[in-house]
């Protein structure tokens, strides 16, 4: 692998990177995906739901290993120790499919390799090579240089490569949500279906705590989410990072309070805890105009996609979709740039024009998002906005 040269090098073999790799390879580009884990997907947590919207853009994803078709879900509101429920969304056809990230990403990486991309696992890109103002490749943790005409940074919300390249900035702590996910297994699919309200296509549940009875709101929305798979489910809870620090939030204690609730015991009492995992994600970073000054997604010889570019549509649960769509766009622009022999920032701005005129921008701009923290403590208002968010296109039973 030492001192090799590729048309396109993609840092990060997850949802966005694998799409970029597959599409770039299909366009005849000599493509390399560099992934830090030994198997793509093995470091990704939290599960996912893919809206069927994505299949219109990338139909090949329909072949991937999904778990459960989702026609609808529930919103649960806690009040005075009681649980009030309302439909999140009910469709006559599946609006989304839930999936475990690990097998799905492993499968996606296989599709990229089948299309002709090379995959280099167990390798960290530690730095970028810069020459005459252009990004010309990466340096790996093995000390090797891998050169590229175009580098696509698909390295997640941390965007260490985007930062090294000088076009991204670290998100501020107040732009970060952190949460703990539990993975539970039920004895059977029937048990899980029953717990989901007797409906096998109700795969998602949002738990809202507008009065702060379970977790306390105090400026952040108290929020739990359940996503259902075949016989198992994820239960996740997250809060804004500064709040976690300020209030010394202990998620496990909060979960224990929840598990003592009669509703949990009645519906999920048979659940067996398999995994405890956590991961932060950006929160509302795109809510304000110009992405809080962190809006660059291109440079000379580099494009940034997905979470690394701040394409994080809080509330609609479409972060994976925006990662995949931006990966697709970046690969298309890379092919154009290489065929024209122009990898300058000015040329790659086509990528920015593309995502700004696509549903990526629709999903992340301030018009289509709800900063629920704004209504913390105002139960009626928060409820109204939660229900409002829940009928937005794209939100299909994902928490």
């Amino acid at each position, binding site marked *: 692998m030492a001192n090799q040269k590729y048309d396109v090098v993609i840092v990060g073999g997850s949802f966005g990177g694998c799409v970029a790799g597959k599409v770039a390879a299909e366009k005849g580009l000599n493509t390399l995906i560099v992934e830090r884990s030994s198997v793509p997907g093995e470091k990704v947590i939290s599960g996912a739901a893919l809206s069927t919207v994505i299949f219109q853009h990338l139909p090949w994803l329909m072949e991937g290993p999904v778990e459960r078709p989702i026609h609808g879900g529930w919103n649960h509101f806690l009040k005075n120790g009681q649980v009030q429920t309302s439909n999140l969304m009910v469709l006559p056809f599946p609006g989304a499919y839930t999936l475990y990230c690990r097998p799905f990403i492993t499968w996606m990486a296989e599709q990229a390799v089948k299309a002709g991309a090379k995959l280099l696992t167990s390798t*960290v890109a530690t730095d970028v090579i810069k020459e005459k103002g252009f990004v010309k490749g990466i340096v790996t943790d093995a000390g090797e240089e891998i050169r590229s005409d175009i580098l696509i940074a698909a390295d997640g919300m941390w965007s260490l490569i985007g930062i090294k390249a000088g076009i991204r900035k670290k998100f501020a702590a107040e732009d970060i949500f952190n949460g703990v996910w539990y993975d539970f297994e039920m004895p059977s699919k029937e048990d899980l279906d029953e717990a989901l309200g007797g409906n096998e296509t109700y795969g998602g549940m949002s738990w809202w705590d507008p009065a702060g009875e379970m977790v306390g709101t105090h400026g952040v929305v108290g929020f739990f989410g359940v996503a259902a798979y075949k016989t198992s489910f994820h239960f996740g809870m997250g809060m804004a990072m500064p709040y976690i620090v300020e209030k010394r939030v202990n998620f496990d204690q909060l979960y224990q309070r929840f598990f003592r609730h009669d509703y949990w015991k009645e519906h999920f009492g048979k659940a067996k805890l398999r995994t405890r995992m956590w991961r932060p994600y950006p929160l509302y970073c795109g809510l304000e105009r110009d992405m809080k000054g962190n809006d660059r997604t291109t440079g000379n010889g580099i494009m940034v996609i997905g979470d690394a570019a701040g394409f994080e549509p809080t509330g609609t649960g479409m972060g994976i979709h925006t990662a995949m769509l931006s990966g697709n766009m970046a690969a298309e622009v890379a092919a154009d740039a290489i065929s024209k022999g122009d990898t300058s920032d000015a040329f790659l701005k086509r990528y920015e024009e593309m995502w700004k005129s696509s549903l990526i921008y629709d999903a992340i701009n301030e018009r289509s998002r709800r900063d629920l923290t704004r209504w913390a403590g105002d139960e009626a208002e928060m409820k109204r906005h939660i229900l409002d968010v829940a009928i937005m296109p794209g939100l299909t039973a994902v928490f």
Partner: protein
Amino acid sequence: MLQKDKVLGTQWVPGTGDFIKIDHDRCDGCGDCVISCFGDCIGIRNGKAIILTYETCQECGACWYVCPENAIEFSWPKGGTGMKVEYG
């Protein structure tokens, strides 16, 4: 919580190297990183934050984000090492 319960269901491959570095000239021992770490990987000793273990680190970068003194340098564990999860 027992150490193994913290990372129930995840595996950890050793050989990560020191991928989180704390600059003790900048660290003022405020402890925000300690609170932010769900793996209890960081402690305070002699008024400065130190890494206690990487074995329960899930590479989330919370410490890097919350440090008000910008004293934490975050990078990735050596390729192929660190945490892995099956039901992620």
